[in-house]
C-alpha cells in the first residue's frame, strides 16, 4: 500500500472532491475562459475590419 492509498482511504471525501470535482470544475472554468476569450478576440477583429472599411470610405 502506498501512502496515497492510505491517505485516500482515510480521507475519502477529500479524495473525491480534490480528485474529481476540483478537476471537473477546473475544466469547466478553462472552457468558459476560452469561450469568453474567443468572443473578445472575434469582436476585436470584427471591429478592426469595420474601422478599416470606414477609413477607406
Amino acid at each position, binding site marked *: 500500500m502506498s501512502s496515497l492509498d492510505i491517505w*485516500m*482511504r482515510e480521507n*475519502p*471525501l477529500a*479524495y*473525491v472532491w480534490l*480528485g*474529481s*470535482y476540483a*478537476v*471537473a470544475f477546473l*475544466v*469547466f472554468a478553462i*472552457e*468558459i475562459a*476560452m*469561450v*469568453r476569450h*474567443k*468572443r473578445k478576440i*472575434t*469582436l476585436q*477583429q*470584427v*471591429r478592426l*475590419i*469595420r474601422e478599416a472599411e470606414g477609413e477607406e470610405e
Partner: protein
Amino acid sequence: MGDGTGVAYFDGVKKLAINWFKYSAPTTFYGLAGKMIPWFAVSAAILLAIGLYIGFAVAPADYQQGEFYRIIFIHVPASILSMFLYLILAGYAALGLIFNTRLSAMMASAIAPTGALFAFISLWTGALWGKPMWGAWWVWDARLTSELILLFLYLGFIALHASIDDPRRADRASALLAIVGSVNVPIIYFSVQWWNTLHQGSTIKFSGTSMHVAMQQAMFITLAACWLYAIAVVLARVRSIILERERNTTWIAELPEVKG
C-alpha cells in the same frame, strides 16, 4: 448510376432549403442565443449546487463503496453527455451536409470541444473511481475503453476541422467524418463489449440492487445541470463562430457590440 440520381435529389432539396436556412438562420439565431445563454448558465449553476448538496449531504454512503461512489454525480453525467453530444454533433453535421445550411455546420464545430472535454472528465473521474474500487487507475473495462475511443473520435473531428483553411471544405469534410464516426460508434461499442467479455474484464457495477432515491435524484439533477451548462457553452461558442464567419455582412456591422 445511383450516384447521379442521389446528387440530383440533393440538389433539388438544396434549392428548396437554401433561401430559408442560409440567410435567415444565423441572423436571428445570433440574437436569440445571446438572450438565452444567461438563463441556461444561471440555471445550470443553481441545479449543480442543488444536485451536489443532495448528493453529498442528503444521500447516504454506499455500504460497499463508502464515500467513493459520490464520484458518479459528475462521472455519469459527463459520460452520458459526451455520448449524446457526439450523436447531436453528427446529426448537425448530416443536416449541414444534406441541406447545405451554414448554421448546422457551425453548431457541429461548436459542440466538438465541449464533447471532448466531457469525454475527458468522464475518463478522469472514471480512473479516480477505479483506483479505490479495483486498486488500479486504469482498467480495460468496456465502458472506459469505449469512452477513450470516443475521445479519439472527437479529437479527430477537431483536428480535421482545424487543419483545413477553407471554412466550407472544413465544415463539409469534418461533417462527413462525424457521420462515418457515428455509424462506426455502435460497431466499436459492440466490438469492445465482445472483446471485454472474452478477456473477462471487470465492469463497474453498483453494489446494491437499487440505488438510494436521494442518489438517483442527485444524479438526475447534476445531469440536467451538465446539459444546461453544455447548451450555454455551445451557444456562446457558436455566437463567436457566427461573428467570425459573417463578419463581412451588414447585419454584423449593425450589432450594438460591434458598433460601440
